[in-house]
């Protein structure tokens, strides 16, 4: 077993281990309902953090509109689930919803990539930022209904749909989609997270992954060795968008009201995901998962401090940033903790 396989297995092990511990706690009734409610959001934020890390850490392109892809995945899948709620049984419908959500997010990732990834520089950041905002505003103006005659579509108002009295308005402008079936569960979330980890970690350690990282490290050198820069960039970015779409599917099937508003899919939400990635370590997939879980849990566990929790949360972010990345602190930590004889280190020395 080589080093990377071992490291990958540790990541899966942490996720599966956390899952087993939580399941045991749940079965024995030791988990508060507050924490139970946090489990699914934790998984989808971890999934989108993994997706963004692929884009920012492995591909080296800054995306600050990743929640836009999450939004696409959420709305396309929620629309499908709402439209076919009575026609298809739950399990195949939810699987189809995943396929649709992922496909749409990937499609948009691909379309955005075509012009932007040919360029060098920070253009992707600018375009994804705009994309996230545009998608939000378009969905806010979208009205889609279904009745006996089929689908009705307009971008004006729900009256312009001209629906039959028995019609059902599925996407109602700013009101979004309400009544999406509640299908997401912790188990499904963990499965999606494991699949996302599997895809990303295997991609990173593959021939393609090495090509992608070569582009990140030195564009000219990579190009001169015959790597097709644009197509590898496209591949990584589309996969990243697709995984973000999967997070969106989990999101929309966890909460019954889905609105395309800033607090879920806006610029700030995208930056929050970027914070997870940066604090977890750029390019460190396992770190993203752990950081997403901790940073999502933290403000919730600090509820006892009322409004002070925002202050504490920001201080924790700053402290984490300094402890993780400041060269002086890293040096100091090595000096202080480097001498401590940890059991696994001893084992390694013996080996």
């Amino acid at each position: 077993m080589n080093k990377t396989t071992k490291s990958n297995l540790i990541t899966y092990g942490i996720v599966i281990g956390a899952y087993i511990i939580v399941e045991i706690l749940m079965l024995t009734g030791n988990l508060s309902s507050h924490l139970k409610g946090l489990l699914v959001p934790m998984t989808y934020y971890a999934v989108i953090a993994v997706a963004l890390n692929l884009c920012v850490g492995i591909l080296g392109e800054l995306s600050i509109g990743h929640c836009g892809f999450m939004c696409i995945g959420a709305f396309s899948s929620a629309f499908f689930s709402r439209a076919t709620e009575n026609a298809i049984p739950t399990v195949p419908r939810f699987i189809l919803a995943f396929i649709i959500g992922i496909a749409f997010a990937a499609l948009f990732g691909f379309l955005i990539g075509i012009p932007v990834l040919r360029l060098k520089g920070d253009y992707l950041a600018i375009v994804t930022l705009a994309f996230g905002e545009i998608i939000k505003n378009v969905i806010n103006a979208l009205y889609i209904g279904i009745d006996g005659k089929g689908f009705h579509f307009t971008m004006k108002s729900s009256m312009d749909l001209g629906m039959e009295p028995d019609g059902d308005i599925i996407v109602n402008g700013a009101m979004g989609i309400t009544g999406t079936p509640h299908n997401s569960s912790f188990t499904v979330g963990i499965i999606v997270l494991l699949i996302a980890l599997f895809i990303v970690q295997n991609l990173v350690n593959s021939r393609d992954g090495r090509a992608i990282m070569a582009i990140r490290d030195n564009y000219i050198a990579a190009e001169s060795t015959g790597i097709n820069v644009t197509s590898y960039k496209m591949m990584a970015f589309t996969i990243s968008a697709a995984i973000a779409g999967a997070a969106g599917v989990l999101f929309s099937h966890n909460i019954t009201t889905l609105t395309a508003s800033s607090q879920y899919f806006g610029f700030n939400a995208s930056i929050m995901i970027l914070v997870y990635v940066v604090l977890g370590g750029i390019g460190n997939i396992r770190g993203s998962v752990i950081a997403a879980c901790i940073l999502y849990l933290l403000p919730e566990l600090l509820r006892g401090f009322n409004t002070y929790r925002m202050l504490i949360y920001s201080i924790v972010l700053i402290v984490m940033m300094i402890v993780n990345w400041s060269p002086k602190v890293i040096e100091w930590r090595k000096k202080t903790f480097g001498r401590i004889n940890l059991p696994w280190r001893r084992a390694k020395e013996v080996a």
Partner: protein
Amino acid sequence: MKKFNKVVSTVMASALAMAMLAGCGDGAAQSAGSGSGSFKIGAIGPLTGAAAAYGNAVVNGAQIAVDEINAAGGINGYQIEYKGEDDELNAEKSVNAYNSLKDWGMQVLVGSTTSACSIAVSENTKADNMFQLTPSGSAEDCVKYDNVFRVCFSDPNQGIASAQYISDHNLATKVGIIYDNSDVYSSGIYQKFVEESAGKNYEVVSAEAYTQDNNTDFSVQLQKAKDAGADLVFLPIYYSDAALILTQANTMGYAPTFFGVDGMDGILTVENFDTSLAEGLMLLTPFAADATDDLTVNFVKKYKEKYGETPNQFAADAYDAVFIIKAAMEKANVTPDMSVSDICDAVKGAMVQIEASGLTSAKMTWAASGEPNKEPKAVVIKGGVYVSAE
């Protein structure tokens, strides 16, 4: 670096495990909550962020009602314990807030304050069969489950009431509308208003939308209404945007009658807003802080003493909500040792029988659908104060 990464991830993993264990500690306290000798009422609203004014009003208004009830001997002789939680205007956080209140032992929920959050939470109260009374969740879907009731008018009802009021009082022949199509509340009222306007004695001549991203310049929307010859402009929006609209209409020399709904309440408190511009503005509102009846005077005085500001309709709705719960609980004769589900069933049955009076209406009754039945009140601003429009 590799080693350091390993150390960090170990530390983080253990922190995660610790966090989970910390959460479990809360779980143990859960069962102790019910069965004690007091009712536990929870409230949810945005206490931080852009809509903090609404959430704080709800949590504070309910607090005043709880204090009054406790001072007067409680519900059926039992005291009330009360706790408010923050949802940051985020449906996801609202469900988290609900779950954390549930761990605290909440038996009845006053909330959530805003529509989208209330709908998301109602999915959970339905599953747990907990009685939910939203003071201000006005979207239609908020009360789609039988365990959820509301105090305020629904958005559609406000749209219908506005259309009828304008028609019945012959206020206009041509109506222009400016609304926020990125807002659930505003577009909900707008839709029903237009539907209801068909066949009325006026005509809707312009309907212009804006969004929260471009709510600073309304000259285009106003110009369209002016060009179409609208003599009344209907503003189903919140007061902060409306203040800008009134100012800009004044600058361009356009002076139709402006007509608002309950979101307009608060326009006289906007900073740097020339309140003389609001002269003649009509609005449908359930609550006016300067009304002279004893109940309102008393409430406003207490609220000002405790929180240092004038209460708005959200505070009034929440205050009424707690008293409505009290009335229903007394009618159903529930005790704190009953399970959440039993309390819900009993209170649900009592809700359709009680007749409540409070700050927002002298007489309120409820249908099993959860909709309140009360008279809409219209006020007009004269000399800088609300005057009944009748």
